[in-house]
């Protein structure tokens, strides 16, 4: 279910030109960076535009053409980096690689020759802020948002249930396995992640984390306390 890059044209009708987010599903705007140019694959830079970073995706909207905009989910961004070497790219930028469906045909080069741009085949995207001092900040925000978007838990894992994750010790603390999933999320330092995605299954990696925590004995007690508070 790799989506890749796509067109994005859902702007608020209030004249602000801001993107419409999926707020009912918890999508939040994390950062706005004005005056950002975008370069897709090997294509020329498009500008000026504004970059909106949400808890789910990157959205780049043209400042001049209200019908032009691109979006890509953090789930589809394989890697991102700060690029500053003028020899490989003229402007300092955030370089991203986008996960696309594997295809027999080679990437965007042949779609360009037909004159039709297939966004879903774009593998590289550069974001060039006019203020390059913002690059490190943007990099950190990208990291933060990437961590907000772990892979969806696959069904197979859900079928095998929560059983194998729990140690005998943890079962003693509060009994039922299903309940454990809840309080583990709420006491975890990364609880924001679990809640914002609204997926109970995410408790699994966090549980595994705790089992290996060297302060396991203490963590267990704390977990119990915060668990009773939260419920």
């Amino acid at each position: 279910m790799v989506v890749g890059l796509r067109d994005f044209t859902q702007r608020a009708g209030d004249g602000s030109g801001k993107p419409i987010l999926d707020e009912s599903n918890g999508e939040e705007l994390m950062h706005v960076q004005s005056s950002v140019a975008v370069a897709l694959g090997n294509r020329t830079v498009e500008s000026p535009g504004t970059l909106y970073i949400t808890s789910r995706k990157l959205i780049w909207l043209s400042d001049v053409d209200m019908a032009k905009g691109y979006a890509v989910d953090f789930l589809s961004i394989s890697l991102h980096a700060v690029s500053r070497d003028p020899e490989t790219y003229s402007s300092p930028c955030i370089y991203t690689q986008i996960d696309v469906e594997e295809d027999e045909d080679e990437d965007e080069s042949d779609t360009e020759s037909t004159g039709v741009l297939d966004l879903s085949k774009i593998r590289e995207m550069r974001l060039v802020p006019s203020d390059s001092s913002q690059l490190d900040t943007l990099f950190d925000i990208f990291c933060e948002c990437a961590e907000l978007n772990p892979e969806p838990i696959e069904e197979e894992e859900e079928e095998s249930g929560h059983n194998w994750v729990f140690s005998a010790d943890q079962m003693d603390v509060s009994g039922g396995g299903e309940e454990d999933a809840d309080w583990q999320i709420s006491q975890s330092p990364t609880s924001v992640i679990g809640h914002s995605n609204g997926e109970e299954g995410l408790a699994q990696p966090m549980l595994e984390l705790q089992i290996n925590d060297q302060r396991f004995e203490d963590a267990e007690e704390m977990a119990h306390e915060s668990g009773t508070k939260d419920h």
Partner: protein
Amino acid sequence: MLFFSYFKDLVGQEVTVELKNDLAIRGTLHSVDQYLNIKLENTRVVDQDKYPHMLSVRNCFIRGSVVRYVQLPPDGVDVDLLHDAARREARGG
């Protein structure tokens, strides 16, 4: 998770991360999180012909789900510690 603890111990060491798209990036392991997202510093691309643009990159964040292999430094494996951790994991499960 065993791998998370394990990779945390490798922070500061030189590793090569091979992605599912065949890109291999060598660099110093800066940090790793519970999803095995990896941050590298002082990176260089092993196959520079295929990804010339990556040459300009000195640090990068790699999504855990796109990693195929992480090549470790030969002395980066504490066998005793790993044995012990594996046993604990097995007991716990």
